[in-house]
């Protein structure tokens, strides 16, 4: 058998698998991250949305987020009450249950970006550092999307 001929293929496969798998083995997994695009020449605010999956058997908490695109980065919760009135306030963090997920999505939790000092234009990628109580800091890149 000329199995050695296939060695580079196996090796290649190994690399592909090795690269694809780290996300599954980390304790915290971030998916669906996106930032809402805002008109470039406006001093305004926008938000980062994402899904956090906790792969450990202990609850974790997103404590804060950091980014150099905005002067202020806070975790906020939007709520609409029974009278249809929307309000928004800062929260201490977002809990991610053990082996569960927390969704930061429109109309709910979001990372609010105020005092923007960069263009938040569709197609741009923005780097964020998310700080968790147990998992520590995780750096992610989120694409900017049109609302």
């Amino acid at each position, binding site marked *: 058998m000329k199995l050695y001929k296939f060695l580079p293929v196996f090796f290649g496969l190994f690399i592909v698998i090795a690269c694809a798998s780290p996300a599954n083995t980390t304790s915290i997994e971030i998916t669906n991250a996106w930032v809402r695009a805002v008109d470039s020449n406006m001093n305004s605010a926008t*938000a980062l949305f994402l899904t956090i999956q906790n792969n450990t058997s202990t609850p974790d908490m997103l404590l804060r987020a950091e980014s150099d695109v905005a002067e202020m980065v806070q975790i906020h919760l939007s709520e609409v009450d029974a009278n249809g009135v929307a309000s928004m306030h800062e929260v201490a963090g977002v809990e991610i249950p053990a082996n569960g997920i927390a969704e930061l999505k429109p109309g709910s939790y979001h990372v609010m970006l105020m005092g923007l000092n960069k263009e938040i234009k569709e197609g741009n990628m923005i780097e964020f550092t998310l700080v968790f109580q147990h998992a520590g800091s995780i750096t992610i890149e989120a694409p900017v999307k049109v609302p």
Partner: protein
Amino acid sequence: MDTKHKRLFIGLGICLLLFAMIISMILNQPYQYHGFIVPPVQHDNHVFLRTEEGPMNLTKYHNRYVLLYFGYTYCPDVCPTSLAKLKIALSELSEADRSKVQVIFVSVDPDRDTLEKINEYAKVFGTDFIGATGTRTEIDLVTESLGVKYKINPPDENGNYSVDHSAYTYVIDPNGYLVMVWSHEILAEEIAEDLTHLIETGIPVDQQLLAGPTPTSIICSLTLIPEFVNNGQGLYEHNCAQCHGVDLGGIPGWRTPLADGSHLAPPLGISSVIWQKTETELIEVIKEGKNVEKPIHMPAFESTLSDEEIYSILQYIYSKWSINQQNYFAGSLTPTP
């Protein structure tokens, strides 16, 4: 054909007829709107706001349904979500229907949202979307009239503040009246469905009447003293009714200036525009008159009426206004900071 077959035939015919009737009943069911239908209210549709292109009146958009949304551009979440939903809903309409809908985003945060900024923000969601705002008094006139709630929260140490606001979309019919409200939870396709039916058939009157009394609570900020209002009525009928009418309706055609630039007597009641003036301006006109040198003019009453009598007449006139007009006028008496 024997009798047995005949009976079977008739029975089958009856069954078919019943079936057809049931089907037609189902098909004739009136469309159930996803939004809350608002009962016909006698609210004032002459309210106006400001846009980059100038003042805007709700009755300005003939043949169009106006979708009003109230928020602020610093809103990172709820406002863009709602506007994005409207954008998707409108993209599902036919081109003909699409041209009959106008979205207006109203900022209740005029301190931070300039006309330019609010307009730019609205255009991000739709090139024909309009951004509008106004002074605090002008905004309150519209929000109170439609039952929109909002609250400016105290600023943090950096001066940033959030604004609580109704997350509803208010549907104004082509005549400028509120007919429907969509909740925050409504889906884009439900909005598109409601709009298609609104444009095609409008809201059946019975559904509007069934909607019951308006839930809008309106607070009046103008103080009316019954004693003055009563005295004012007599004084009005004696001094003013001859030209301005017993019903305060004025003389038709008062809007068109006469050849010499003077006007016929304008209405002073609910159909008037004088509630946009200040009390000082009104007193001045009563005392000094208008166009006194021309054949058709408002006489000066300075020498015939005392200050208290003038005030009584004004109180009587105020009592004939809508709550919104009274509130607007009261706002101009004590401008809110």
